[in-house]
């Protein structure tokens, strides 16, 4: 295996990881604010079709990404209206959002089946990605760099800013945050909208970058992976990046194991591909067990996660 092989493998892995990283970062912020939105898959699909539709109509993929973010955020705000204003059950409403998003994206997508747009690929001069090392750094879609930057922005926001502290307070103890004058519902609305926008951009990565087309249900369950990753990452942005790359590596291993491409690895070649396919889920369970062991039975989940905000007025 030469340098070319390794670099091509890294590029494939980053391609698999980016959309779930984008959606996972959004969901991480939502859950830090104490809201559990299981509608990631639906918001990704809505983002995928709105991003594609806007790109077809304007010819500009940047506007397409904005459209995807807006589509995702709007569908998330609909979810927010139910769970935050009407206090409906978050799990049930989130599942309903996924079903709604799947259906709505299919409906909008009807007139876009069979159309294509130019791939939203690297915006660097092609000369930079001519040699393998150049490809390793410059051959990606702008969305890849955006996702990486957002890892640092989200980590910094949650750890180092006053607004991030308020958001975490709302997620850890909503009544206390309320009692010292912060708008719990307002903060949660903002977080939910941000989560929807990120899921929408993650969805647009499928319809504008990986395969620049629209196909019903094209996200194929990646929204659920993103949800699992947030738990795997124990609600930390840096670990989410590692987790998403880990998922990419495992899928790459699975595909290579199937094609007999792991023969260069002494033991990996004889491991069945199903093992690699099952690993992300197994690892999530293991990580959860490790976290609860370290915390002596406690959990690193935000304390108010999934609970409706009912102040005693």
């Amino acid at each position, binding site marked *: 295996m030469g340098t070319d*092989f390794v670099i*091509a*493998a890294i*590029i*494939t892995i980053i*391609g*698999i990881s980016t*959309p779930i990283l984008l959606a996972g970062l959004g969901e991480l912020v939502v859950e830090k604010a104490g809201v559990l939105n299981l509608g990631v898959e639906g918001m990704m699909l809505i983002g995928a079709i709105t991003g594609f539709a806007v790109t077809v109509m304007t010819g500009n993929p940047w506007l397409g990404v904005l459209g995807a973010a807006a589509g995702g955020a709007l569908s998330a705000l609909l979810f927010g209206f139910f769970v935050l204003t009407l206090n409906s059950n978050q799990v049930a409403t989130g599942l309903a959002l996924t079903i709604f998003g799947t259906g709505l994206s*299919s409906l909008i*997508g*009807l007139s876009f*089946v*069979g*159309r*294509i747009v130019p*791939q939203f*690929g690297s915006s660097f001069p092609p000369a930079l990605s001519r040699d393998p090392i150049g490809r390793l750094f410059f051959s990606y879609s702008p969305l890849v760099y955006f996702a990486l930057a957002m890892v640092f922005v989200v980590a910094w926001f949650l750890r180092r800013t006053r607004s991030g502290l308020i958001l975490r307070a709302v997620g850890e103890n909503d009544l206390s945050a309320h009692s010292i004058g912060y708008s719990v519902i307002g903060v949660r609305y903002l977080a939910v909208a941000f989560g929807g926008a990120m899921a929408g951009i993650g969805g647009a990565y*499928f319809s504008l970058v*990986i*395969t*620049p*087309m629209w*196909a*019903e*249900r*094209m*996200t*194929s*369950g*990646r929204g659920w992976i993103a949800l699992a990753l947030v738990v795997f990452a124990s609600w930390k942005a840096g670990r989410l990046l590692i987790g998403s790359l880990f998922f990419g590596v495992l*899928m*790459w291993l699975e*595909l*290579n*194991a*199937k*094609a*007999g*491409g792991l023969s260069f690895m002494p033991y990996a070649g004889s491991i*069945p*591909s199903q093992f690699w*396919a099952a690993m992300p889920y197994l690892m999530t369970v293991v990580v959860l067990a490790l976290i609860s062991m370290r915390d002596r039975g406690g959990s690193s989940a935000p304390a108010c996660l999934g609970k409706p905000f009912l102040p005693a007025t």
Partner: protein
Amino acid sequence: MAKLNRRAFIAAAGAAAAVLPLTGNAFAQEKLKVGFVFLGPIGDYGWTWAHNKGREAVDAALGDQVETIYVENVAEDASAIPVFRDLAQQGCKLIFGATYGYMDQMVQVAAEFPDVKFEHCTGFKRADNLATYNSRFHEGRAVLGTIAGKMSKSGVMGYLGSYKVPEVVLGVNSFILAAQKQNPAATLKLVFIDSWFDPPKEAAATETLLNLGCDLVTTHTDSPAALQILEQRGLYGFGQGADMSSFAPNAHLTAIEDIWGPYYIERVQAVLDGTWASADTWDGIADGTVVISPYNPAIPADVVALAEEVKAGYVAGTYDVFTGPIYDTEGTLRVKDGEILPLSDLAVMDWFVKGVETAA
């Protein structure tokens, strides 16, 4: 109490009997309901899309006597059973199930509804009211393999498979056998992605195959994802189920189009005429069920001629890609020189021919 109930029932039945002829008159004659159960979304632009075109052909040809109903996105597991049951209870007299994985579910539901006729696509279990139908896609794959054998420079080709089911095994073997007739050294790397429709995984698998040295990839999954990756890399591939050239104008050499309309119309007509009987139908290029899309101008004329020869051979019955000698991956002679594998063996094929590299 019981008496009262019975009296009430009789009264209601009498009223219903009085009303029924009226509704009968209002609708002149009741339309035959035909159900379709699809694996993917009808917008997949591949397998399910092609079956839905067949359904639309039934509507166009027999719409005045027939009403079609379809259910899409039905998984190949136990959840398919209530879908078939529900269609039968809605009054469908003929129900098509359009994927291999509905086999046992359809056997079960067909036994529960003896007066409803069922048709299962690509399966091999039949009953008095359960027919099977299939298309000899492998004839089309032989045409694609012939082209691939000439168009692949490295002789290492990729095959993006869904599941290890006979239809796909046949496609793989047919493709590489035909390619080896053009390039005896040709080999095939095979990946199963455990799904018929997963565009991001199809894309990642295609990149993986290319990274393992393949310079041409053909797909047996249902989306145009692989073709789009090949288009980005300036390489070649083939469409599956439908002409996918609009997704990859340069990479798309040609495609196998599944034309189900004529078969669906024939079987619906048979139910209307009362002549329907359980059967095992396997149509191919000669019957117009398997159609090869227009060729990409990038294919040289002599290669097009070779492909046309294979097509003509299937129409005339003078060509069969499964003509011996055929060796399996272990090097064992499975089909003797001059022998042709019969369709009954093809229907349950579970071994790969020499030149196929896979961990499956």
